[in-house]
């Protein structure tokens, strides 16, 4: 579905010094700065996959999305999306893709969403019957039936996002690019959007490329993760394996009533980290040890609360963002294997 080989994109900007003299200087002599946004990127995506494209701000995720959709032209490398070269922007290609940008509205602000939908119906040449059914099906699923005839500028962010999603799916695209679709939404709205995407994918088996900073989105939707750091690929593999990058040990947390408990020699044998208040401990355990050690602690100490990690990938992601070298080492080791 998507084949990227040594894909690169660099931007040129100009250096400008401070103050009026700087402005004057740059008027006559500009110093170009070439910044590489994506560097030698390889990626292969099969039909029906849901890929999470992750990375810190400025890593090159959006640049990749823009290249995949044909909005910008790659500087180097080969790219084929559904058999088309996106930068040629053929109408045939544009009919097969869709892009949803969480930070940017694609619906026209001054008119109701339904008017935008009818315009898109004409653009994508969707037969009337199919169009009606699609609007009916999606608006029911998203619970936005009453909002179709309200001016878009009067809608809340969550409501608008649902309509944006609808707009992008009307023409039954084969690939959909979701660029932070849940950004700025409340927890319920986030979950609604996620459930909708999941349900839509289950029914239509389309290919989805998703970027998000919310690990809950990724956890709920993606089977495969692609990590990008400073324009290069850091990790590419199943979600389950990603959780184990930092080791296969599980973290268990215990909270105690008593502060003095950490002095007990029992803890010395365990891989434990205490919080500042000395009331909570994180213990890293192998899967086989998990049950025994946990029940031992529960029996021995005045535990008032305990839990295992709710979202291991969030922790992995945080660690990697703070220290990208881990992943780069990891991927080079993988390569050696």
């Amino acid at each position, binding site marked *: 579905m998507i084949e990227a080989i040594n894909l690169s994109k660099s931007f040129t900007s100009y250096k400008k010094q401070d103050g009026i003299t700087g402005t004057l200087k740059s008027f006559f002599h500009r110093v170009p700065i070439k910044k590489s946004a994506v560097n030698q990127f390889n990626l292969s995506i099969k039909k029906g996959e849901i890929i999470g494209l992750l990375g810190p701000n400025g890593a090159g995720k959006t640049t990749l999305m823009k290249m995949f959709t044909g909005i910008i*032209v790659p500087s180097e490398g080969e790219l084929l999306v559904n058999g088309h070269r996106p930068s040629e922007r053929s109408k045939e290609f544009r*009919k097969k893709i869709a892009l949803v940008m969480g930070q940017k509205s694609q619906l026209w602000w*001054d008119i109701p969403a339904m008017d935008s939908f009818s315009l898109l119906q004409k*653009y994508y040449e969707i037969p009337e019957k199919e169009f009606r059914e699609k609007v009916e099906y999606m608006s029911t699923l998203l619970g936005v039936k009453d909002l179709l005839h309200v001016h878009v500028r009067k809608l809340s962010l969550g409501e608008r996002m649902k309509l944006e999603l609808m707009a992008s799916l009307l023409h039954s695209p084969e690939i959909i690019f979701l660029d932070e679709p849940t950004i700025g939404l409340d927890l319920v709205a986030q979950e609604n959007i996620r459930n909708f995407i999941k349900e839509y994918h289950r029914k239509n088996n389309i290919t989805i490329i998703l970027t998000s900073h919310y690990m809950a989105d990724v956890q709920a939707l993606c089977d495969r993760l692609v990590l990008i750091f400073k324009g290069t690929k850091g990790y590419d593999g199943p979600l389950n394996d990603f959780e184990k990058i930092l080791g296969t040990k599980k973290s268990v947390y215990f909270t105690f009533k008593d502060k003095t408990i950490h002095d007990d020699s029992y803890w010395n044998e365990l891989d434990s980290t205490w919080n500042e208040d000395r009331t909570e401990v994180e213990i890293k355990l192998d899967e086989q040890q998990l049950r025994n050690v946990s029940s031992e602690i529960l029996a021995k100490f005045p535990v008032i609360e305990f839990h295992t990690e709710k979202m291991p990938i969030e922790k992995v992601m945080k660690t990697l963002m703070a220290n990208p070298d881990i992943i780069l080492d990891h991927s080079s080791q993988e390569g050696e294997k």
Partner: protein
Amino acid sequence: MANLLKWWQTMRISWSRYTAYRLNFFLQVIGPAIVFFFIKYSLWSAIFSQEPHKVIQGYDFQGMINYHVWTLIVGLVAQGHTAMNLSEDIRLGRISTYLIYPFNFWEFHTASFFSFQILQFCIALISLGILLAIGVISSLTLSTLCIGFLFCFYVSLFWYLLQYLTGILGFWLEETWMLRVILQIVAGFLSGAIIPLELYPQKFVAFLNYTPFPYLTYYPVKVFSGDYSHLMQAFLVIAFWIGITFVLNHLVWKKGIKNYTAAGM
């Protein structure tokens, strides 16, 4: 057929968008035209007040005001359109959306332009009705009116292409409004919208006749006054300039889209 439907629907949507903020639209379109007209009215009445029966290059006071009333109507139809949204679309990265639709950016904006022209035409007709009712315009035949408006529409195509060109320069320039202001002022002087061309040196006017400017206002006003003598020349010169701006637009767009970074997408 499907393509025609796309254009038609885009025109309908643009119509709703233009009329969504009626007061705003009115202030933007009619406001400047009326203000501009009153400035010119005061200017010429001051000039003629010294000698009320003076004739300047064939224009007495009544004739001069009549000329400027027509420039108001011509201005609405022939040069009403601005490409304000266009460069903003580029600068803020909004054209990304259009680049993905299977309907091109230029098609979208051209369809919008057509619906804008229809709206402007309605406004021009209403203004004309008012001017006729209060007796500012007297002699007028239906055929003159038809030929005059057709001519204005033809000229507006050139004006649109020129505006489009300033708009897509937004690929390189942060702001393009000053370009449009310069264009507006230059066009104002050279097209005869401020001073009728009879008042300029003949040699200069002969030169101007090869540029598109006099056909933006001066000649359309002549047509509305029943003088068709320059129609063929006007048709050819404007056709030439339409060709030039069309090719330029094509080249600039091609180069610009390669440079486009979709900032802020």
